[in-house]
């Protein structure tokens, strides 16, 4: 079961999902919201296909995923696993992403960043979901425990 202690970062953190090609080159893209099935150890993260063409092509070939999520407090985790499917996002997930992006934009504005700039990155919705099975979780909060594997 995906540990409860990671849930706040999973649902409110800023994420980047990476993969590797068959010839071991790497790609990543930003994520804009997630859904988590704690019981079944699966995560679905939302991406914009318009800026993730190479990433999506390669993740569908190799199925390998490294999903980094962090908060402004520096608390961070890396979820590694295998892609189950990519799919078009439905209305419920788009609504969830909208709430996530609005919250993120508000947070960035409160830090003094310009709304127009933040919206350039977070204003447009994602369109694809990547559902993957979590096989390993690593703590990535800077400090002596960085890189420690969490049991689950």
């Amino acid at each position: 079961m995906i540990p409860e202690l990671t849930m706040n970062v999973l649902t409110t953190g800023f994420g980047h999902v990476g993969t590797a090609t068959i010839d071991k080159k790497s790609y990543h893209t930003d994520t804009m919201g997630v859904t988590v099935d704690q019981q079944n150890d699966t995560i679905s993260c939302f991406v914009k296909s318009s800026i993730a063409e190479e990433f999506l092509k390669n993740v569908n070939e190799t199925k390998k995923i490294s999903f980094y999520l962090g908060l402004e407090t520096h608390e961070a985790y890396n979820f590694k696993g295998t892609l189950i499917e990519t799919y078009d996002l439905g209305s419920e997930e788009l609504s969830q992403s909208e709430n996530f992006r609005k919250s993120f934009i508000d947070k960035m504005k409160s830090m003094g960043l310009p709304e127009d700039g933040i919206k350039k990155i977070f204003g447009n919705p994602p369109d694809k979901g990547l559902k993957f099975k979590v096989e390993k979780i690593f703590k990535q909060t800077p400090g002596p425990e960085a890189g420690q594997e969490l049991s689950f």
Partner: protein
Amino acid sequence: MINEEHTPAMQGMFPSTITTCSKDGEPNTSVISQVWYVDENHVALSNQFFNKTKKNVSENPYAFATITNPQTFDMYEMELMFDHTEVEGDLFDEMEMKLEAIASMSGMSGIFKLIGSDVYKVKSINKLNL
């Protein structure tokens, strides 16, 4: 390759994302404080404690990074190839000083510590069409 359009995104205002791959094909995505401009064909990344990234590029030199211009919010993707590590000299000293400043501003003094300046050759740099 790197020009004045890109250098504002290398000032450490926003964290950058990096993904590497092990010799067994396992990706690792992480966040770093700064992608440092070295010259028009090279950048340096601070090696602090991200041991998996360091281990991966020692086995497989390919890396992928994303940087963000803090004024325009334009984002750029870079294909990189690890070249060498510097543990002393001007580049290391400048990066160490900047890292201490970033650590101080973000409440991470004593935790962010530069181990080495990892220099990468830039294979490509492309603006994301946000």
